[in-house]
């Protein structure tokens, strides 16, 4: 019955997302932290392999490889508009891709109940946590509804190049909103009959806790902060 515990604690995953955003995406810390930036650029790939998400990993790796190639062997020789375009593309990809992949890893490997348990341990109030849990549940729903609506539009010949192209957005959004709202309503009704919203504290059968890999991530983060503030490893 005991579900397999995930490789990293959800709290560590949240930390990782934060570091990706600050260090790689916003390039805080400047040139000095380049070695850490390099580590955190490739960490998402490693994690995706541990989660057996090889497809995303290969595609992401391919894009990254092409970008690095462009950066080192094409960009130095480019001039004018081509140079500008290349620069923008390279910057966007090297900054956004690792953060995106880390996000994909976290969403793929975190169960809602694990996330909830982590938030409870960090003493974040339920008023904040429950809406976030519902979002986890809702993304796949929105994706499913969206796919069905797209198929229906294709079949009825409404779309780019088809009939009524100008009103396509409206035709897409109206059923989308009414379908998700309906599901949301039925979902709340079902949750109410099963005691959600009861004022007493919930239990959670999900086990979370820090392991050796979490410690390694913390050590790395600590090292980075020390290096940034002191300049050397004492």
């Amino acid at each position, binding site marked *: 019955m005991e579900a397999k515990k995930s490789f990293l604690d959800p709290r560590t995953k949240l930390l990782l997302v934060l570091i990706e955003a600050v260090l790689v995406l916003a390039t805080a810390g400047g040139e000095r932290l380049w070695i850490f930036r390099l580590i955190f650029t490739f960490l998402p790939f490693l994690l995706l392999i541990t989660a057996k998400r090889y497809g995303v990993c290969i595609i992401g790796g391919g894009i990254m490889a092409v970008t690095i190639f462009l950066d080192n062997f094409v960009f130095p020789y480019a001039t004018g508009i081509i140079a500008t375009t290349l620069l923008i593309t390279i910057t966007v990809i090297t900054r956004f891709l690792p953060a995106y992949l880390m996000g994909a890893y976290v969403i793929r490997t975190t169960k809602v109940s694990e996330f909830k348990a982590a938030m409870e341990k960090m003493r974040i109030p339920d008023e904040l946590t429950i809406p976030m849990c519902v979002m986890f549940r809702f993304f796949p729903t929105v994706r499913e509804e969206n796919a069905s609506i797209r198929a229906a539009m294709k079949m*009825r010949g409404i779309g780019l190049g088809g009939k009524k192209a100008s009103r396509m957005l409206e035709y897409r959004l109206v059923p989308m909103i009414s379908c998700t709202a309906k599901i949301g309503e039925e979902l709340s009704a079902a949750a109410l009959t099963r005691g959600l919203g009861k004022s007493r504290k919930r239990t959670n059968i999900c086990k979370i806790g820090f392991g050796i890999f979490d410690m390694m991530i913390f050590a790395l983060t600590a090292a980075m902060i020390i290096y940034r503030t002191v300049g050397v490893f004492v």
Partner: protein
Amino acid sequence: MIKFEHVDFTYAAAPEKKSLSDISLDIADGECLLLTGESGCGKSTLLRLLNGLIPEFYDGERKGKIIVSGKEISESKIDDLAGKIGTVFQNPRSQFFNVDTTSELAFGCENLALPEIEIVSRIQKTVSDFHIQNLTNRNIFELSGGEKQKIACASVDVLRPDLILLDEPSANLDHDSTQSLRQMIKCWKAEGRTILIAEHRINYVIDLADRMVILKNGKVANDLGKTEIRSLTDDTCEKYGLRSIKNISPLTLAKEHQENDSKELIRLTDFSYAYRGAKNILSIKEMTVPKNSVTAIVGTNGTGKTTFLECLCGIRKNKGRMISNGKVYKSKARLKEIFMVMQDPNHQLFTESVLDEVMISMPTENEEKAKQILNEVDLSDHADRHPMSLSGGQKQRTALACAIASERSILLLDEPTSGLDLRHMLEVSEILKQLKEQGRTILTVTHDSEFIKNCCDNVIELSEVK
């Protein structure tokens, strides 16, 4: 255990019509009561009064008394009812709160703050009672409708409620899944729980019922005991406006069209499909469908019936070919020749009025003709309504009207009668028969044996890919 005394109820959202009027019922402990009647007769309202969704979720005015376990129900809040009354709803897609199954089973107990060991042991018992070991620790989004409904029943079971309410639980299920649902209800009955089932499709549970209450316009029209239920026939059911009581698997109805039939044929070749990273779900070397007829496609879960329709229609790209009148149609060309009515009509209604919806389906817009089509499907009175404000049956007829308006010669339907009562099912049958007369070819995926008997000329069975 439950006592209704002269209960009236009117929804705040529809103040002009009483949803229930003067209901008096005594339901004994351990009784299995089947609640039936046409759409809109008040079945669901009655269940909502018991599980606390009225007044917590749906506003309205109630008169009369409802006593559950010696206590007036309005004195208990919905929170307190959670461990005592469990509800299984109609739509398997919208009644789970988690993404993985095991968390979902624990969800109710966690809300009641039961100790962890207790929750784990309850889950273990439920899983073994319901034989759903294969469904633990799975992503709910990867389960079929029938499997989702099993999880819904199981997550009610772990709460061990004395009273279990089921609100059209079989509406979206195929024949095999209703059989497993039946097993779970049987399990509850054996444990002595009180069960209320609101259903149109009564055939799979009718022999478990101790009592059957038929509602009509919010009133109790008939209250049948065990012996009366046993002596019911399809003819008496029809008089009451009920669906057939014969539990027939649609697979047994399979009949290919006659070779000497003079009708022209449409040939379908090489239809196969595999979802990303999975085995072939569909593999059809060759299939022939007679023109100007209604053909039912039947098959158990996982035989790719819906996928087949999507491939045939062209919304799922594939290599299959359709040969009609000596012309070969590939995926893209078929998109313009075939119209598909999806199982959930909400996905294919886009505009602001029913009339607009029909108009945009036409090759060239023609209001006169659109109105005439709406008349054919009995929707003239609703031409100006927003499609999303219609009832389920009306939405489906709107989608059918669009299909007619499209003037495409081939029409596909995916489970057009799921959740429909007798009257609405017969309406759909009539429309299909008319369309056939007008020279259209209709293919419908269905699990509804009664519907097949009413209007389908041929029945083709899809079997699992080996």
